């Protein structure tokens, strides 16, 4: 396969940045999207050019490090797939592919396609935890959990914090991420003591970071590689309302 890439290049946080066009030849359809970029980067290094910086780690879709907006869609148009698990067979030979970083004020560009997602860490620090007594592990089944709650909590817990929801949201909102983390804990008995303070603290931190508000467009859940549901946002809204009613 031969491809034309239009890639966002930005040498650092202060640089204005621009789209640069590259030709990539002899791409195997079995390559992942990141492997295709690896091939281009090897050539750029040989040519004495600066390789394109992008985040990646596990390359098996579970770590949440990779992510770029491919042809206007975070992680590309393949549903429920991270960029590292997106394969070149989904593209046509001769295709022109636009690659951009996540765009949001709370996600400043570090370099090229790498953005700083520390704002997510601070949302977690604000309340994404449970207080448990330290010591030996509790007996299994000592705390019963309804099957439905366990399933829903697990679905929310599959969020890998990649930030695609923010990138896709027309408002630059982090509601799906924050809601997934809140729901994951608020459905389980272990999360009950801090349930309302958690929702309040995390929503307030989300606002303080400069993310936009949710207008329930559903763009986030459509691009989420883990298919996190909008139900989590309703859960967050409900917990936040209750926390403020107290």
């Amino acid at each position, binding site marked *: 396969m031969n491809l034309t890439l*239009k890639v*966002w290049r930005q040498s650092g946080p202060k640089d204005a*940045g621009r*789209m640069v066009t590259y030709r990539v030849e002899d791409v195997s359809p079995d390559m992942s999207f990141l492997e295709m970029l690896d091939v281009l980067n090897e050539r750029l290094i040989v040519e004495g050019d600066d390789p394109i910086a992008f985040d990646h780690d596990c390359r098996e879709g579970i770590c949440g490090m990779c992510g770029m*907006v491919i*042809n*206007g*869609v975070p992680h590309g*148009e393949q549903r429920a797939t991270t960029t590292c698990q997106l394969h070149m067979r989904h593209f046509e030979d001769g295709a022109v592919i*636009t690659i*951009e970083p996540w*765009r*949001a*004020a*709370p996600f400043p560009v570090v370099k090229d396609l790498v953005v700083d997602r*520390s704002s997510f860490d*601070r949302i977690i*620090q*604000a309340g994404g935890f449970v207080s448990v007594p330290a010591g030996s592990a509790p007996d299994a089944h000592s705390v019963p959990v309804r099957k439905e709650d366990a399933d829903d909590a697990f679905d929310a817990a599959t969020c890998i914090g990649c930030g695609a929801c923010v990138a*896709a949201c*027309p*408002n*630059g*909102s982090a509601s799906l991420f924050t809601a997934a983390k809140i729901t994951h804990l608020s459905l389980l008995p272990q999360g009950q003591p801090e349930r309302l303070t958690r929702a309040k603290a995390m*929503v*307030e*931190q*989300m*606002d*303080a*970071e*400069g*993310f*936009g*508000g*949710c*207008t*329930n*467009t*559903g*763009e986030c*859940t*459509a*691009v989420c590689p883990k298919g996190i*549901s*909008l*139900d989590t*946002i*309703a*859960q*967050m*809204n*409900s*917990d*936040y*309302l209750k926390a*403020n009613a107290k």
Partner: protein
Amino acid sequence: MTATIERGAATAPVASPKAAPSARTPKKSGRFLGSSNGKKVVMAVTGAVMVIFLLSHMAGNLKIVLGKDAFNEYAHALRTMLEPYVPYRAMLTLVEIALVVSVVLHMWAAISLARRARQARPVKYVAKKSQANGYATHIMRFGGITIALFVIWHLLDLTFGVVNPKGFDSTPADRMVAGFDASRWWVTLIYVVAVVMVGLHLRHGIWSGFQTLGWANHTRNRALRPLAGLVAAVLVVGFLIPPLAITFGVIK
């Protein structure tokens, strides 16, 4: 030899919360209304007030189908509601105040959320493709502005009679029938566009209100989404019957 695993700090120390952008943290007072979630709650509640008003407004308009007298009696009844316990027009004035407050708060929340959204994405995408059909993204803010402009025209036309051929010194039914006369087909056209816009706005808005208040989930959505569509459709049809019937001469 067995390896010993040292327990304790397995990760680097976490940066102190001071690293968080504290300068942008909202003040303790007015936190709820200042928060994006709080503003959405304001939009949901004021939106619900306006939807309930629209349903009764639509039902009232349909009185014209029963004749001019029925419509005028209805308009009079609105003003004499609960008399003699409360003065003339008291209940109507209360409703008007509630509506003005709702409209103002709804717009305030919408504008401030839209500004927030703009600040959250200072650099736009070169290519951006909607994956959720983009309906709500395009219809809500644009539609809201259209509806607000229409409401101004609507009040000037049928409430104050400023742009109505019969003027203010006429019965409500006369203003309505004269306003939608076939010679003023463009007025009817404005109404059709505006009412359809209201319908599109509510198709998303009604469901969105439930979601914002935390009452929606995937099971209830099977009822809530069609309900939102149904209420929107009923309002569009109900509001369009009187002006279209008058323009096409069915009601004279």
